[in-house]
């Protein structure tokens, strides 16, 4: 529960979320979503929720990103917006 760390992580989180939704290349979008997942895992570890951080690191940042990339590989890679 360190306030400065908290604030910095939360600001990075918002930046990562906005960027992930604005890039046109879907593969980059999925990778930045993976970055978002790891940042939020750090935030929860800092808040004392270690089980949630473990689950988010393995499920949210690991498996979710792989599933997105698998789908993008099978469909189109560029998006129009």
């Amino acid at each position: 529960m360190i306030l400065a760390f908290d604030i910095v992580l939360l600001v990075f989180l918002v930046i990562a979320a906005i960027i992930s939704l604005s890039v046109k290349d879907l593969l980059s979008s999925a990778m930045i979503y993976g970055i978002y997942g790891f940042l939020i895992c750090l935030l929860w570890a800092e808040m004392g929720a270690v089980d949630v951080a473990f689950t988010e690191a393995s499920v949210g940042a690991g498996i979710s990103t792989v599933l997105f990339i698998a789908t993008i590989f099978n469909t189109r890679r560029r998006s129009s917006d």
Partner: protein
Amino acid sequence: MLSKVFATIAVVITGGILLYGVSDFPGFGDPHSPPNAGVPGSPSVSQYFITESYADTKVPNLVTSVLADYRGYDTLFETVVIFAAGMAIFAILRVVGDQSVEQPRRTSESSFTDGDHSRIIVGTTCRLVVPVIQLFALYVVAHGHHSPGGGFQGGVILGASFIIIALAEHLNAALRRFSERSYVVIASIGILIYAAFGVFAQLLGGNFLDYGFLEPILFTDGPEMARSHSMLGVEIGVAFTVTAIMFAIYANLSSRGLLRDGL
């Protein structure tokens, strides 16, 4: 364009109302806020979990003891939801038989050590690392009582080890080790293990998922150790299901249901 305008209006109004409501929230980090300590006269249930859970179940990890014992019913149906998602993906995507006329993406399944040298680094590293990952996954499942971990996290790591095999070599290499029939059977066995703990507790006289009554079967001295052992058994069931379904979801998504060749 209309959808963007509508979305912006909706988001601004909702966000404004929510931000106005934030001022009524309990302060961040306050140990005496209503979720943490309850209101005077009715303490919150988490106070009971913190103070009494070790005496009831002898498990130091409070999150695991609440997840698998006090809230075991939720966890059972969460496992069923994961299983149902795997079955839904099977029903949506799976194409059985050779009806499609598309060519396989990788025409040959040559090993990376002879012939195709482009994947030699990734392939060798994965061959060295996958057994360690699987050992770590089993450690995480077994030590859920003492350290962060438990059935879900260990199951996901174990499923990810099979996904690594599929990514490094061919999807068929992973399917040879963990075929479709195996993963469906293992996913079902996981839920049956969990439900068996509950049903045996009922047969011995207690409520469903009341692990204290399993004392005669598990040969422990006292209902606390019976609850601790049953929590481990239940977490193993959850790990089975999560492993199988995570690999099933990846296999079906990456091969568009054909299960012939993936990424």
